[in-house]
């Protein structure tokens, strides 16, 4: 009988602080624990007593990588509870802002965090010594996402212009048009990214995921739609908590989530794509076909191609919004008369997947209760399942090799531990005989 122990104290190239513990006995994987030691920050507690108008700015600070997602879920939840309907122009501008965040976040993950795994570098800086052109293209693409957020939101991290009921100020058509040449360039770069990533060497792996995402009657999902799953679930967003539950485990500061039937599930780009392949715009659809991307991708390593396709989609969508934009009469709407808040519930598609918010307000508009379920919390259990599978397949590797494979399995899902609280240390214990 032999024991093997591998410890990685901190997972790199993910957003946040975490660790992984894997215990192996007699060639079977006994236990996988994704440990999130990012310190808790208690947003749901200190949101109580704050005005509903503060929710978008405060919840944005949960995550510097996807602040727009928090702003969007918070705004939509409040508007639903207060019975506010925003104008079509505001709706379009929000989608444009979200496109900016998707482009920025996906370019960051694809080029700076994920691609080094495929090309064998510790980071994009060192990768740039031999692949400077690719890294520069990735940064140029990322910069366009940030430019969209800066123009609409004032800045790319924690934009200041998002308001419950709309925007504080809506841009003129001329201001928005200044983005067009940059987005046209980005669209080309994104298409190149699809071709680049589709040509990478991928391990041949298929996982059995239950995919969960929003689905909208006409559009690739962002701010609206029902919650659907690849196993036939279809519910309105306000029934989320009936079908999905959060639970706490001793090894993590992030609550985990599962289906009420106990199963893990996956949110994020692979889920959105699998459940909404038919909603891609023409150029995104064409490039996915060109590189032969299957309609449902079950190989987690190939998520890098899916993110690239979604980046094309976001650029194409942004241009479509620019074409149609006319400034609204009023930048924002607000409740009239006495507040009669109902259930404030919304889910939107953060770059990393479904982001659920629920609030209860009092008659003066102060928050009494807040519940936020970020995508990485939901994916933790599924990521543990992926790691279990990768370890099971790779038992013959030495410790260093196995550690690398575990880290890759986690990075495939672009986890954001700042959101989930944050990320990784690998502690691998092997026991039993070879």
């Amino acid at each position, binding site marked *: 009988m032999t024991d093997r122990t591998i410890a990685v104290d901190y997972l*790199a*190239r*993910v*957003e*946040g*602080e975490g660790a992984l513990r894997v215990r192996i006995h007699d060639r079977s994987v006994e236990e996988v624990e994704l440990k999130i030691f990012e*310190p*808790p*920050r*208690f947003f*749901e*507690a*200190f949101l109580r*007593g*704050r*005005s509903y108008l*503060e929710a978008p*700015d*405060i919840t944005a*600070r949960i*995550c*510097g*990588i996807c*602040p727009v997602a928090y702003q969007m879920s918070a705004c939509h939840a409040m508007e639903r509870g207060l019975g506010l309907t925003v104008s079509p122009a505001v709706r379009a501008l929000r989608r444009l802002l979200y496109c900016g965040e998707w482009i920025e976040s996906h370019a*960051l993950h694809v080029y*700076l*965090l994920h691609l*080094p795994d495929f090309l064998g570098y*510790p*980071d*994009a*800086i*060192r990768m*740039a010594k031999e692949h400077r052109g690719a*890294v*520069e293209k990735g*940064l140029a693409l*990322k*910069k366009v996402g*940030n430019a969209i957020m800066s123009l609409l939101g*004032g*800045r790319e*991290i*924690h934009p*200041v*212009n998002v*308001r419950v009921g709309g*925007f*504080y*100020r809506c841009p003129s058509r001329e201001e928005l048009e200044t983005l067009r040449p940059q987005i046209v360039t980005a669209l080309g770069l994104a298409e190149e990214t699809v071709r680049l990533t589709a040509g990478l060497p991928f391990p041949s792996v298929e996982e059995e995921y239950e995919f969960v995402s929003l689905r909208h009657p006409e559009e690739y999902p962002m701010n609206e739609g029902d919650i659907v799953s690849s196993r036939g679930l279809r519910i309105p967003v306000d029934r989320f908590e009936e079908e999905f539950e959060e*639970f*706490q*485990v*001793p090894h993590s*500061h992030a*609550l985990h989530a599962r289906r009420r039937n106990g199963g893990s599930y996956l949110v994020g780009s692979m889920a959105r794509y699998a459940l909404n392949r038919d909603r891609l715009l023409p150029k995104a659809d064409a490039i996915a076909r060109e590189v032969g991307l299957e309609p449902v991708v079950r190989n987690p390593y190939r998520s890098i191609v899916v993110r690239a396709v979604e980046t094309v989609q976001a650029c194409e969508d942004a241009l479509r919004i620019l074409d149609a934009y006319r400034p609204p009469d009023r930048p924002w709407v607000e409740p009239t008369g006495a507040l009669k808040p109902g259930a404030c519930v919304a889910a939107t598609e953060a770059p990393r997947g479904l982001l659920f918010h629920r609030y209860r307000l009092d008659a003066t508009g102060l928050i009494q209760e807040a519940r936020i379920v970020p995508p990485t919390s939901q994916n933790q259990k599924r990521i543990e399942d992926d790691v279990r599978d990768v370890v099971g397949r790779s038992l013959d590797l030495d410790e260093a090799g196995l550690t690398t494979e575990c*880290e890759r399995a986690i990075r495939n899902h672009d986890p*954001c531990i*700042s959101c989930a609280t*944050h990320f990784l240390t690998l502690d691998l214990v092997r026991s039993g005989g070879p």
Partner: protein
Amino acid sequence: MARPKLAVFKFASCDGCQLTLLDCEDELLPVADRVEIADFREASSDWVGGPFDLTLVEGSITTAEDARRIQEIRAQSRVLVTIGACATSGGIQALRNFADVQEYQRVVYARPDFIRTLATSTPVQDHVRVDFELRGCPINKSQLIEVISAYLGNRAPNVPTESVCVECKRRGNVCVLVARGTPCLGPVTQTGCGALCPSFDRGCYGCFGPQDSPNFPALTGKLGELGMDPPSIRRFFRTFNANAPAFRAAGDAAEPPKEAR
């Protein structure tokens, strides 16, 4: 000559301030040519040990382990710069400093006994010597590049400490507070954002913390005239830099804490 070693460390935070470095798309590769990125875990899986020539610290101290870790980092760092509201004032999570953290734990977690946290969220300077504090929620890109360039060039960073109002005038904005009656923290807040909020027709909400010579009683009086009640004024001072001493005191002055009444 060996390139100077740069490190980036994270404590309780949203990751946005270290992301700011990766958001410097035009400067990132040129900066990386001039420094050795010795420890930046969000960006690299390869880290070498200290000592570091320049260390950037994001986030506030909220656990006993982090209180120990910051001491180690200080000992390894020739120059230590804190970046962002969390590291310089305790951040939004310092709202626990005004509340009962055990009650907070019960609200968020079914099993609060699994959670290890301190009762307070404190800035890095409460624990170790800090060479420079770069404010902001998030920090400003050009100020970050200025700070990195300054320390690489062995000079002091040029980062203004005047109010948002000064920047607003420079931009030619109409004053949202005076002309529109919109509550605004611009008069008491340090510039650095480029007077963003007033440029978007809203009031400043204090991302960069107190400016160097704020007049809180005048602003508090004005906010009252605009119809804000004391709890609302206190809340206004208590967001992303709630624990900055000047904002903390202004909040208490607007509505004294219960035990003091």
